[in-house]
């Protein structure tokens, strides 16, 4: 057991963590980055289709600007997003994309002259003007008014991650891979680092740091095999924050299901396929999205498309297979050349995992867990509620740009935009902080982790397996906390998850070899993962409305009178249960209205926007929001969206 000090401790080596680390390293601070895997193996590399930024460089992107990106993002979120954060994000995204170009990302570029695209089922030829030759081009993605996704074939996340990691190497940032954090070190509402466990040797280290950043990605693996996520996306950051007892998680019931997970492996097939003109077909070969969403068709937001797909399956229009019902993603009309260049990774995945040639055969797909909108609740500076010196960034965080549904291409953008914005704040704060914590505190947290490990090692094996608990939790979530939810099923899910948590007491380790024991590693994580699952289910049960990805068949109305708020979940140690409270979503500028797709019933706010905005800052502070460098609302561009809304901003139908 060792104690080390560093200025900034970043936990998580994906894009958000690395981009954040670069800000501090550039400012001359000592940065240590801990990662479960070598950074280039982080899940950021799995982002395929694109990164949203309103550069407006190709014909179908003409007239685009950050304000329209803001509009699309807030509508996509079903008004659950913090609109000030969405404003910051949309305006910083173009700078972030260009910075990545400067660092070497081979963005696909505008090819002047005739370009063939597929738009709403039609083959269209568009002349890209000579004056735009060589600029970063865009492809279409769901829920956007303009083509906005910047991309590098279908390996965008990979290309961006390698460029950013190249900067990390160039700057000589200390990266320790195969290391996991086991607990945060904190005292009196102030975070001072974390305890880590080496996944090569099992050695424990206490890292004392002036600032600690959680950049651990999402927690899709609570859905077990029913997710597109990598095996490492187990919600480590959310669990670390929750275990402090001080920091809430935001909107954990907001879970994104991606429409096109490959059957049976669950591997992601990018939205870029539909952006480039791919069709969704039912068993009769019919394009059902054209009937369901005449305007956006296959390119409505992900929550909406996933619901229509599950609806087809429920109506008996799915394709039967040994692996359950699925639908088809048809790319045959795009042609082999397009598939082998602009969607090359999709080509590879179809060949490798299904032995399938997408230029000749349709691809079997179904909706599957993909993204965690929820996470560690932070203010606009990225600082956690209730815990000074602790920051969270990227998918691990609830910043909250995505509200109840994230638009495709906005998460890759968030990693680098939030990494820049929050990274700058981290660097400023760290430079103004001195490390004033006793090593006794570090020793106490070190001892705590050592004790947890010893307890696991000493437990008698009574037949219960950690993997069985993990699989049980995944089955419960997949069956009862999925695309469509009902109160009855959620009640059962909550009870079953409580039982699964009790089952952990019966789990014993079958192996206890020296060094790193993979079973021990899984056991150390299981309690936290079940807690995240319980919070997700309870949040979904209590939220008696439908908003974005949270679709309650027994409460189909989006209820802005009662539920225009964000769920905050804390874990009470004494009750061993989650405690939910609700805070305003933030300041409102774009009033709640119709999204332009996925029509649902809506119940309007009963207060005025002004009244809502007056009480929001005070209530958020009461819920734990720490003061920000600039006051709340300072970055809002009030009314800037006016004149850009091409869809009615008011509800079309009231309840």
């Amino acid at each position, binding site marked *: 057991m060792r104690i080390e000090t560093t200025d900034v401790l970043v936990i998580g080596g994906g894009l958000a963590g690395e981009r954040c680390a670069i800000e501090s390293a550039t400012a001359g601070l000592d940065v240590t980055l801990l990662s479960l895997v070598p950074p280039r193996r982080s899940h950021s590399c799995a982002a395929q289709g694109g990164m949203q930024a309103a550069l407006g460089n190709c014909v179908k992107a003409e007239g685009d600007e950050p304000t329209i990106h803001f509009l699309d993002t807030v509508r996509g979120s079903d008004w659950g997003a913090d609109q000030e954060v969405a404003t910051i994000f949309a305006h910083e995204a173009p700078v972030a994309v260009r910075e990545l170009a400067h660092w*070497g990302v081979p963005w696909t570029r505008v090819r002047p002259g005739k370009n063939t695209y597929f738009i709403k089922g039609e083959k269209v030829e568009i002349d890209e003007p000579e004056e735009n030759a060589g600029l970063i081009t865009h492809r279409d993605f769901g829920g956007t008014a303009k083509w906005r996704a910047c991309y590098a074939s279908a390996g965008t996340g990979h290309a961006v991650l390698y460029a950013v990691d190249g900067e990390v190497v160039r700057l000589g940032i200390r990266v320790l891979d195969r290391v996991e954090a086991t607990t945060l070190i904190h005292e009196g509402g102030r975070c001072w680092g974390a305890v880590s466990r080496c996944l090569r040797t099992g050695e424990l280290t206490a890292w004392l740091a002036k600032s600690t950043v959680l950049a651990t990605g999402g927690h899709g693996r609570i859905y077990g095999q029913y997710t597109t996520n990598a095996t490492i996306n187990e919600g480590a950051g959310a669990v670390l924050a929750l275990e402090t007892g001080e920091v809430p998680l935001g909107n954990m019931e907001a879970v994104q299901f991606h429409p096109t997970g490959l059957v049976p492996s669950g591997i992601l097939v990018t939205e870029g396929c539909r952006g480039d003109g791919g069709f969704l077909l039912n068993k009769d070969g019919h394009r059902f999205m054209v009937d369901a969403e005449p305007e956006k068709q296959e390119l409505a937001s992900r929550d909406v498309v996933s619901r229509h797909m599950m609806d087809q399956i429920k109506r008996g229009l799915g394709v039967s297979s040994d692996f359950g019902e699925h639908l088809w993603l048809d790319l045959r009309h795009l042609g082999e050349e397009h598939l082998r260049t602009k969607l090359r990774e999709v080509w590879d995945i179809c060949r490798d995992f299904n032995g399938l040639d997408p230029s000749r055969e349709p691809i079997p797909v179904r909706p599957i867990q993909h993204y965690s909108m929820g996470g560690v609740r932070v203010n606009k500076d990225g600082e956690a509620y209730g815990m000074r010196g602790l920051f969270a960034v990227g998918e691990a965080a609830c910043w909250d740009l995505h509200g109840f549904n994230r638009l495709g291409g906005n998460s890759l953008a968030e990693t680098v935009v939030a990494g820049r914005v929050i990274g700058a704040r981290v660097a400023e704060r760290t430079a103004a902080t001195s490390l004033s914590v006793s090593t006794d505190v570090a020793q106490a947290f070190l001892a705590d982790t050592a004790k947890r490990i010893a307890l696991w090692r000493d437990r008698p094996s009574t037949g219960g397996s950690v993997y069985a608990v993990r699989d049980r939790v995944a089955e419960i979530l997949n069956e009862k906390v999925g695309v469509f939810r009902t109160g009855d099923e959620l009640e059962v899910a909550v009870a079953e998850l409580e039982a699964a948590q009790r089952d952990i007491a019966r789990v014993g380790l079958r192996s206890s070899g020296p060094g790193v024991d993979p079973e021990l590693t899984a056991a150390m994580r299981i309690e936290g993962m079940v807690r995240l699952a319980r919070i997700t289910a309870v949040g979904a049960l209590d939220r008696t409305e439908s908003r974005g990805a949270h679709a309650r068949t027994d409460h189909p109305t989006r209820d802005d009178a009662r539920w225009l708020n964000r769920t905050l979940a804390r874990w009470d140690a004494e009750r061993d249960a989650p405690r939910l409270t609700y805070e305003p979503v933030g300041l409102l500028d774009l009033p709640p209205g119709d999204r332009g797709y996925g029509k649902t019933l809506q119940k309007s706010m009963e207060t005025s926007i002004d009244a809502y905005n007056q009480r929001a800052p005070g209530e958020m502070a009461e819920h734990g929001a720490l003061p920000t460098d600039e006051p709340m609302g300072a970055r809002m561009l009030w009314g800037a969206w006016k004149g850009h809304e091409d869809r009615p901003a008011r509800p079309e139908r009231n309840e």
Partner: protein
Amino acid sequence: MSTDTIQLETPRRLRFEIFRFNPEDPASEPHHQTFELDEQPFMTLYIALNRIREEQDPSLQFDFACRSAICGSCGMLVNGRPRLACNTLTRDLGDTIRLEPLPVFKLIGDLSVDTGTWFRGMAEQVGAWIEEKAPFEPHAEEERMDADLAQAIYEGERCIECGCCIAGCGVANVNPDFVGAAGLNRIARFMRDPRDARGDEDWFEVVSDENGVFGCIGLMGCHDVCPKELPLLEQYAYLRRRMLGAAREETAT
């Protein structure tokens, strides 16, 4: 359209011969251990190894992350040949499957090797980043690039650093400082990039010795085993041409 591809036959009994050694355990000796499993449709080595660990031996060490052949974690020797485990379907293999860790890299345990340290070292050795020509201007338009050139750079950028080419390289197996095909590919990728400030002379310093482009003895095992089918032969030829050109210029002056 049907799902005829899914065969429901009597499953094969697969026999896995897996290399075992835990360097952290003084009592551990390198050996092979045999496990058996019933094959299931679409079974990959990712699925098989996890089943073995969860059902038969919880101490078995191996690495997976994305399980979709993009993160590069799971390179190993499958019947003696370096490849990714996650996209290897058991239906393409015989009844007996021999699994061993990649050579060259430091063994962590069983099938798990330390590729992270090796690749970070390589990145530092070759300078695998853009050397900027001028500082970034946040509010300037991006530098333009021809669409075909961007595509060509992307082609080299596709390397996932899985280490298969290094494990399959006759030189890398004897010279620990040789940057291997992954290193040479990365150099070619930056050499092609007009955003990079380094000229041929700078690159000559980096690669023109036995640890770089002139270390390769042309066995091209790398090209045969690359799971991403990178054009390693072309990249290598491009590098040699550029470096020989640079050497000639140097001799002429």
